[in-house]
């Protein structure tokens, strides 16, 4: 009796330690810098959560944001997945109700690490359903520290994926449970969890396609049973109704092709069950099974041809034809290095786990095999989808490791079925030494895995990217806080209703930290508006001034990395601005104008005159020509492009410099109002003396 008690204590302790490990390893950024929201997208999520916590739930759901996408505005309530904000808002509300006064920002920063622990617990539950408790504990430990998941859930990365992976694993656990037991209770639990997942992330499409695929494959394998029928019918109907409650999803589940597979399988299942019912009533022969097989295959082919191709091919089409999507670096295919970097030894071990699952097949192991195969395909096509592969890799490698350890650490005497003698590989009972060696090797592998994970987390995935840090030779640190310096200058020194124009990357940060109205932001829902901003940046100053006047712009903000050698600045992104502008205004902007005749993009004297006179160039290099960074380089030497700039004497007519941050990283310009009297150019002020025309005619003399 005490054994089971000891076992559950051990499991509890291990899960608690896994939660703690996952939480702690995500705190590098908070310890090194401070508790701050990272990157770009989380700033919008934070701002929405702030709005939710100050104004209430219904205000958030009906929110029309007029301080973004000026003058269009953005309907936030209907274009966002509210799960993240509601979760953070709810936790904040409950804590404040208990008089634990935590600021909403701290809740947002630490939400993802807390939920990583919950993900570990749900992975444990899922793997325990699939294999056994030992594998479950291993899987929980793996997913707590694996870099593929940490990259999107560090402290400060307040983004949908942080809670969505927990919702995913929990939904899958409840689905497996409901297929195993066939009870409506577990299925309704699965539907509620699915509803949470739909509210949290757009990746819910993966669930609504994987579960029907699982049902379909079970039908093909002749594993139809009453439990399956109850589970899927309830899940589809209740899940469908619940998913349509999210305003952003709306009527998509009954209209778009990504959801049609679920409907098709639902119809197929009803037909199959009906035929099964008839078969029980009437006597038929053996080839009836073939008939069922043939019918389901035919129906499956029909449904597959009716539904359009799935997500990644669609994304590849979008990538080729829409420049904005192509410019995001996460939408690239995956090299093997990324697999190894994010998953280390798990990526080599999980095929073995897959092998075991298929060799000892049952209903739920079919599910995990399908999950693995589809996830590995998607991850191969797009780097960003590595995140969906990570949970299944953890689970399957945990199964593999668990099997190995069971074989080598299990007690031979107590084994239920002794090792059968394989005809080709003669097996002797492994001696103590070989067991010891193999166990030591496996443990070493696991230790190296833990070290690798921590190293990757510390070096690659823990930078807030709002604050930059550089390290000197002696190890001391220089903090470059230019971004926040500039945003706070904006917040404190400009009018509350001032409008700031910048490239779309910085829109969320400006709205979040500076609290000013922006023209375009990371949502990128309106390509023509972004193209207008791109056109203003790439035209010369007068043409740009016309556009800025029409858009009521008060300030322009650009990022310039030439002083410190920062390579993510606006001049490096400039070609994308030109391309997007050219897409909408092909007659005014031509990408070839910005290259030299040889086809190079140069900022020095040999650069194209269009480039040297465009607004972005002028704003970036204003007064830079007088600046000499060190003795070896001439004044006006751009460290990022490694070139001396071509146009050093820049004069701005319609803009004036408002603010430049300490390391010249962020530069803000004020748009001057039009003057009452237009000053004429000197040329036009000269009045050319009129030519006096003297007629050469002589009066005819009549008096000759």
């Amino acid at each position, binding site marked *: 009796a005490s054994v089971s008690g000891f076992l559950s204590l051990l499991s509890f302790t291990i899960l608690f330690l896994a939660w703690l490990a996952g939480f702690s390893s995500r705190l590098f950024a908070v310890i090194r810098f401070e508790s701050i929201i990272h990157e770009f997208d989380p700033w919008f999520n934070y701002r929405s959560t702030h709005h939710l916590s100050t104004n209430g739930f219904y205000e958030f759901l009906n929110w029309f944001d007029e301080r973004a996408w000026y003058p269009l505005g953005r309907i936030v309530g209907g274009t966002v997945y509210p799960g993240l904000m509601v979760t953070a808002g709810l936790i904040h509300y409950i804590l404040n109700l208990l008089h634990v006064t935590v600021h909403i920002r701290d809740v947002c920063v630490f939400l993802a690490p807390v939920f990583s622990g919950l993900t570990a617990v749900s992975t444990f539950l899922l793997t325990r359903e699939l294999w056994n408790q030992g594998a479950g504990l291993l899987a929980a430990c793996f997913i707590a520290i694996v870099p593929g998941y940490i990259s999107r859930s560090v402290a400060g990365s307040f983004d949908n994926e942080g809670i969505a992976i927990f919702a995913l694993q929990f939904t899958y656990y409840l689905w497996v449970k409901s297929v195993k037991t066939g009870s409506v209770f577990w299925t309704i639990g699965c539907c509620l969890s699915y509803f949470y997942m739909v509210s949290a992330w757009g990746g819910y499409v993966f669930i609504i396609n994987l579960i029907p695929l699982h049902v379909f494959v079970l039908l093909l394998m002749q594993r139809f049973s009453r439990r399956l029928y109850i589970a899927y019918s309830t899940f589809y109907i209740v899940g469908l109704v619940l998913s349509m409650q999210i305003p952003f999803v709306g009527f998509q589940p009954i209209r778009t092709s990504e959801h049609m597979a679920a409907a098709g399988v639902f119809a197929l299942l009803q037909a199959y069950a009906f035929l099964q019912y008839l078969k029980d009533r009437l006597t038929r022969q053996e080839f009836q099974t073939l008939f069922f097989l043939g019918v389901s295959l035919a129906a499956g082919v029909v449904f597959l041809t009716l539904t359009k191709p799935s997500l990644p091919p669609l994304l590849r089409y979008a990538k080729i034809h829409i420049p904005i999507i192509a410019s995001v670096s996460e939408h690239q295919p995956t090299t093997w290095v990324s697999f190894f970097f994010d998953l280390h030894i798990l990526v080599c071990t999980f095929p*073995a786990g897959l092998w075991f699952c298929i060799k000892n097949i049952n209903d739920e192991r079919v599910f995990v095999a399908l999950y693995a195969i589809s996830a590995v395909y998607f991850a191969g096509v797009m780097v960003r989808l590595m995140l969906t592969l990570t949970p299944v890799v953890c689970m399957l490698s945990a199964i593999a490791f668990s099997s190995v350890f069971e074989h080598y650490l299990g007690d031979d005497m107590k084994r239920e079925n002794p090792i059968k003698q394989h005809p080709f590989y003669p097996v002797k009972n492994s001696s103590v030494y070989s067991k010891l060696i193999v166990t030591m090797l496996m443990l070493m592998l696991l230790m190296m895995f833990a070290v690798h994970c921590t190293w990757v987390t510390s070096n690659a995935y823990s930078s807030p990217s709002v604050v930059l840090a550089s390290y000197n030779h002696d190890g001391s640190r220089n903090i470059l806080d230019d971004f926040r310096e500039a945003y706070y200058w904006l917040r404190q020194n400009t009018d509350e209703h001032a409008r700031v124009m910048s490239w779309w990357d910085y829109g969320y940060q400006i709205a979040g930290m500076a609290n000013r109205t922006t023209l375009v932001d990371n949502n990128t829902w309106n390509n023509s508006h972004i193209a207008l901003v791109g056109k203003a940046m790439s035209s010369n100053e007068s043409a740009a001034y016309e556009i800025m006047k029409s858009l009521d712009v008060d300030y322009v903000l650009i990022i310039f990395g030439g002083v410190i050698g920062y390579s993510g600045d606006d001049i490096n992104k400039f070609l994308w601005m030109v391309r997007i502008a050219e897409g909408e205004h092909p007659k005014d902007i031509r990408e070839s104008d910005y290259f030299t005749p040889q086809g190079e993009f140069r900022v020095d004297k040999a650069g194209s005159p269009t480039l040297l006179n465009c607004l972005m160039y002028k704003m970036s290099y204003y007064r830079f020509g007088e600046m000499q960074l060190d003795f070896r380089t001439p004044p006006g030497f751009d460290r990022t492009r490694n070139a001396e700039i071509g146009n050093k004497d820049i004069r701005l007519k319609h803009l004036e410099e408002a603010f430049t941050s300490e390391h010249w990283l962020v530069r803000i310009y004020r748009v001057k109002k039009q003057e009452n009297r237009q000053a004429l150019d000197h040329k036009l002020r000269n009045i050319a003396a009129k030519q006096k025309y003297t007629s050469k005619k002589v009066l005819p003399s009549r008096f000759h």
Partner: protein
Amino acid sequence: MFYKLLIVVFLAVSLQGAPADGQKKKETLLSEKVSQMMEWTSKRAVIRLNGEKFRRLIRAPPRNYSVIIMFTALQPQRQCGVCKQADEEYQILANSWRYSNAFTNRIFFAMVDFDEGSDVFQMLNMNSAPTFINFPAKGKPKRADTYELQVRGFAAEQLARWVADRTDVHIRVIRPPNYAGPLMLGLLLAFIGSLAYVRRNNLEFLFNKNVWAFSALCFVLIMTSGQMWNHIRGPPYAHKNPNTGQVSYIHGSSQAQFVAETHIVLLFSILHCSRISHTAQLHTE
């Protein structure tokens, strides 16, 4: 008086013929050129030019048609892979034009190979291939008449857009349907069907777990060794350093990879997995 009148009339008629004769000669020359170009186009959508033909048809006036010329080097010893790919796209474009309803004699597609017309390359001071230049009906080609290959790529749709920009002739690019895909699918289905028919009494092989496990494993290993990246980006097998002659099978940067690299990784993964599955399999069987 009558004879004077006759001589004047005769002179008037003959003199009128002389300037008109020059005009007529020009017209006949032009229509000859056009009909020759049409005849060549009817035989082959992309006209092959050498130096002499180029000078006669493109350089020498009169000309009322514009010509798009691809300057390329397709001989195998030139080792220009881009030229071959661009040539395929160019052929698709020219064929789409030739078989379209809007086909006129206002625009022609031609090509000059370096080995056939190197004097043309020299004359135009060209030293890179492939290059696409539009020779408009009137005047010399300007800077925009050279197609920016580096920026736009050589897809037939992009070329068609550029042609429409420069010559106002809109060509709808129609790619010949690729029968390879459906054919393979048809063959596969036929194979599966025949297998199912032959073994219709005993479908046990479908339920053999080893087959399924093995194929699942193959798929997973192929994906995780980076084959999709190879399929999308098309890297070389390995890289031979031109200066030192050393062959490197592993790419220096982590953003890219060689095909050889993925095969090495695949091998290691197979060894690792088979070892683990073998040791533990003895227990679970």
